[in-house]
């Protein structure tokens, strides 16, 4: 058994929602209800569920982008929930995130070089020449060019923007990357490119991924372990192979049955492309 890089225990997060006439009443929504997960170092843990199941809240709470009500998040032996200010910022160097929407997650008024290099500046990594070198190397690694540093995000296609988002997350050489639906806004052909890129980078940089998705076809290809969430609770977890072959919980079975393309088995076709 490999060591675990991230352990979350008994996470609880409750949102207050206005309800009733004029919003005078309040109802409590349990976005995370006693959630515990373990991410093994160098592996990919997928969190799947419908929208509203709490998977994005889980990601945000793990990175302390939102405060938890209770529970602990152990990263390399430290409880992130207890850290504050500078200590938390120092740890965040190792925790990066790739966002869902490649259009909304890049500042339109910053050049790509600045976007990717910002983390290096914040964490004071090397002098400016070294930072420049790192940014260039990272851009090249994700399939962009040195000349792209001077461009603005609007000059790129959706797939290219997601590459910029990945470069921004990885330039600090983090240990853990949280990918919140990184390919759901992309075309199938681009999706395959980005997934392969993520897999290659994982092998090269010994990354651990927390991969959030509602597309079980994508998860099958990238994840080692899987957590199925429904209404803030984990209903099932285990190795990807086991869950896909023998889903125990009814909710998981429904999710698997909803995958489009069941009528014709696309996988049987021989392809020489």
């Amino acid at each position, binding site marked *: 058994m490999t060591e675990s890089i991230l352990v979350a225990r008994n996470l609880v997060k409750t949102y207050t929602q206005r309800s009733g006439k004029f919003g005078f009443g309040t109802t409590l929504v349990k976005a995370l209800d006693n959630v515990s997960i373990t991410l093994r170092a160098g592996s990919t843990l997928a969190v799947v569920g*419908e*929208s*509203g199941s709490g998977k994005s809240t889980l990601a945000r709470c793990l990175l302390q982008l939102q405060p938890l009500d209770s529970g602990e998040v152990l990263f390399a032996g430290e409880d992130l929930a207890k850290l504050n200010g500078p200590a938390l910022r120092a740890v965040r160097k190792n925790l990066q995130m790739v966002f869902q929407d490649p259009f909304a997650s890049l500042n339109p008024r910053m050049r790509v070089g600045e976007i990717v290099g910002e983390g290096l500046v914040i964490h004071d990594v090397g002098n400016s020449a070294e930072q420049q070198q790192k940014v260039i190397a990272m851009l090249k690694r994700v399939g962009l060019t040195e000349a792209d540093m001077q461009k603005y995000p609007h000059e790129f*296609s*959706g*797939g*290219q923007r997601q590459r910029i988002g990945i470069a921004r997350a990885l330039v600090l050489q983090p240990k853990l990357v949280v990918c919140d639906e990184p390919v759901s806004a*992309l*075309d*199938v*052909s*681009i*999706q*395959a*490119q980005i*997934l*392969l890129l993520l897999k290659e980078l994982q092998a090269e940089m010994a990354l651990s991924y927390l991969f959030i998705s*509602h*597309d*079980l*076809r*994508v998860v*099958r*290809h990238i994840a080692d372990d899987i957590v199925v969430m429904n209404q803030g609770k984990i209903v099932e977890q285990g190795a*990807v192979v086991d869950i*896909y072959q023998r889903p125990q919980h009814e909710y998981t079975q*429904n*999710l*698997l*049955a*909803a*995958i*489009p*393309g*069941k*009528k*014709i088995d*696309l*996988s049987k*076709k021989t*392809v*020489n*492309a």
Partner: protein
Amino acid sequence: MKAETHKAFPLLQLENVTITLKKSPTRLLVKDVSFTIEAGKTTCVVGESGSGKSLTALSVMGLLSKQLQLSSGRVLFNDSQLGLKDLTTLDAESLRKIRGAKIAMIFQEPMTSLNPVLTVGYQIGESLTTHLGLKGERLKTKISSLLELVGIPSSRANSYPDELSGGQRQRVMIAMSIACEPQLLIADEPTTALDVTVQAQILKLLDELKTRMNMGMLFITHDFGVVADIADNVVVMFRGEIVESGTKEQVLGNPQHPYTKALLACVPDAEGKNPLRPIDYAWLLENQPSLSKAPSLTAGVIA
């Protein structure tokens, strides 16, 4: 043209439709596209973003933006009352009578295509009042029954779009589009923004409605999984051209064109048996010289 149904013609027939930019008429965004849609059948148009599939759909509705023009080709719509009409030659007034009543459209983003300051009931009722002249109690009853038909409680007619979930909003869009019982429904990636479970529900709903109302459906998507679930006929587009078309069994079961094969191969399979294969455009262009003729189109497609 005689005002009777031309039995020999299908519901919709696109003949050599070409769409260009007004400013540079040599730049072909959609090139020589021809296909047909039969009543009660679903034709799926598949392709990546930038392949011209949405433009083709918009041209049927006469909704192309002002910078674009339909430079040649005919769009023949075979209506049971109006007879055979070339939609490209109709004036704005006659087109308005067809839109919503005979041909309806569902757009991709249920969040942005509904008006946030009007109740969903009002928005569903709009086309009923315009095209069928329904008012008062009869209008209310019809709206309620439409909402029930798409699986939303009729009490939600007074809700605003932001009070509904993404799946419910798309159901409202569907209720709006089928309100006047159109003969042709155009759906432009109606499930791309939705979860898998909701997607499965919406696809099932559309398929049922199509059968019940004997509608023809033009369904645009980039997901071959969806195609396998819903299509009768498939048209594959690449850089503004049709590269392959046929029945679902032909195109999915025995793809001929290298682009179709490549597009099929990059759909991740749920069993995880096949490795992921992104499309290798350089290889495609080398092996299919006919595709490289439109260099102006290549720039935007490669990610």
